[in-house]
């Protein structure tokens, strides 16, 4: 918990429950650089921390615009953690891994 340690801590996440399933949904709008970056960042992160227990669904809002209303999506790209509950939203291209892990509740807020 001490402050100077924060930056040097390796990407270590909390211990997951044996049966814990991760259901993630990434909202994009076409194949923009931001969206492509978000997708590759997400895949990398999941392989590193959630191997074997995650599922990613990509929703292109240009094809399914009605979903923007249903899921309250404003920013693109947006990552929604549907499972485990509660639902979490993370926006941006997921380039800041630290913040993604915090946002996904894989690491406690400092």
């Amino acid at each position, binding site marked *: 918990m001490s402050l100077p340690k924060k930056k040097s801590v390796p990407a270590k996440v909390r211990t997951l429950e044996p049966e814990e399933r991760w259901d993630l949904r990434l909202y994009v709008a076409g194949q923009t650089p931001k969206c492509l970056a978000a997708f590759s*960042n997400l895949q990398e992160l999941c392989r590193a921390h959630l191997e074997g227990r995650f599922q990613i669904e990509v929703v292109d809002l240009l094809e399914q615009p009605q979903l923007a*209303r249903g899921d309250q999506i404003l920013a693109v790209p947006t990552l929604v953690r549907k499972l485990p509950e509660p639902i979490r*939203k*993370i*926006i941006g291209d*997921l380039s800041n891994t630290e913040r993604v892990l915090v946002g996904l509740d894989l690491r406690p807020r400092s």
Partner: protein
Amino acid sequence: MTTETRTRASRVAHRSQTLPKAPTGIAGLDEITGGGLPRGRPTLVCGTAGCGKTLLAMEFLARGALEYDEPGLFVSFEETADELTANVRSLGFDLEEAIRDKKLSIDFVRVEPSEIEETGDYDLEGLFVRLGFAIEEIGAKRIVLDTLESLFGGFENEAVLRAELRRLFRWLKDRGLTALITAERGDGQLTRQGLEEYVSDCVLLLDHRVVDQRSTRRLRVVKYRGSAHGTNEYPFLIGESGISVLPITSLGLEHPVSDERLSSGIPRLDAMLGGAGFFRGSTILVSGTAGTGKSTLASHFADATCARGERCLYFAFEEGPAQIVRNMRSVGIALEPWRRKGLLRIQACRPTTLGLESHLATMHHAITEFEPRVVIVEPISSFLNAGPVEDARAMMLRLVDFLKAQGVTLLFTSLTGGGEDLEQTEVGMSSIVDTWLLLRDVELGGERNRALYVLKSRGMAHSNQLQEFLITARGIELLEPYLGPEGALTGSARVAQEARDKAAAVTREQELEAQRLLLERKRRALDAEIERLRLDFEAEQAQFERAIAQGEARERALARDRAALEQSRHGDGTAPRVNRRRTNEGGGRP
């Protein structure tokens, strides 16, 4: 009415040549803006919390959808669709039906900062996709974003947000949407986030002020690019049928006038008013101190109106309907039958229960609904005394303008305080009044009597007399004015003076009679004298005639004697010469 609508329409059309406009349908706002909001461009509505931004925006959409056939999308960042629908239902808009008919759509955009973690570069394409989808769903021509600034609370990266807002307004313009964007008032600038930087075509500012514990809402057009607009602060009301902005000057003095005259219900008063009564569509003020019969006069007018078969709306601010009906029955004015027939409506309300604006709104609403030909407000002084005088005056002016535009006759009464100068207190009201009747007490000889006079009456020759009147079991009765050598008198003084006059007249009569008798006596005396003289003369004449007759007889006898003597002397005629001379000396005959 039709003429009025036409002039207003042509005026609006004339102004709108400058820029295509989308009418809001909100009473008064289209007049201030010269036809509505700029079509196909965004308009910013800013103001403090609770000043009516959301409502104005919703009314703009609802009226657009229902009255101008322009479907609208309401994007709410603060309230859910259910909340919004419930909020405006109290204002007479049934949004559910419009939503079912796909004329209106409400989209609640939830911005929840606690749920959002920012992890890199992003944009608001999701919002654009979402708006685009909702717009196409109903073919929206109008859109409201309420309140866009909520976005600033949801996203950390202000640079991205501002860039996206700029893009949003461009995007809305490109789609030809007439947009209304609401924003909170900020310190030192129009909006907290400086949205006016992006929306620069038209800016409306709403304000909600409390002065002397009374709230007034005001609207001002801060900016309207490419169009003339009213620049004043206009009070507006949120009433039972939505917002109404009441532009003081917009109706101007262009209202139609009528030559038709309306009886006041008191024949003698009509006579004072050029012989025919009030003009239709005019504004009549009846002022006076307490107990001078203002209500009775107003009720007479109401009665006369209903008797013509016209509807009369009576706003009572001091008495309840039942009390008015009872009181007027006691002076022989039967109002109850008119109420039952639906010709008279008495709407009673304490002046203090509502603010001026709400009062005006309520009155507005009642007038629009009941469509009376005559409106009575009794009394307005409660407003004048309770609130800021300018506000009360502005309110009356708006009411007067509103009624004049429709050719409705307005009579309002005003109570003047005891010690004040009757004509001074409402000097501010005078300019908006066409006919001003002043009721006053005349104190004389230990009693108070009522008198009435016409202080002014535009457009007609009117009496300048102070007329005394009585309130009898048959209502107000004006008396023949007593104007003697000692001035106008009323009440007992008048009766006494009349008695004195009568006594004086009797005395004069008696003197005259005495003189007549004297003259008669003199005439008779003269006649008697003439008779006497005539009799004297006649007696003398008879005497003379007798003497003449005797003389003649003697002459004849002498002549006979002479002839006999001649015969006896057989003379040749010398002797008679001596005889003749003797005859002449002794005879009377010439």
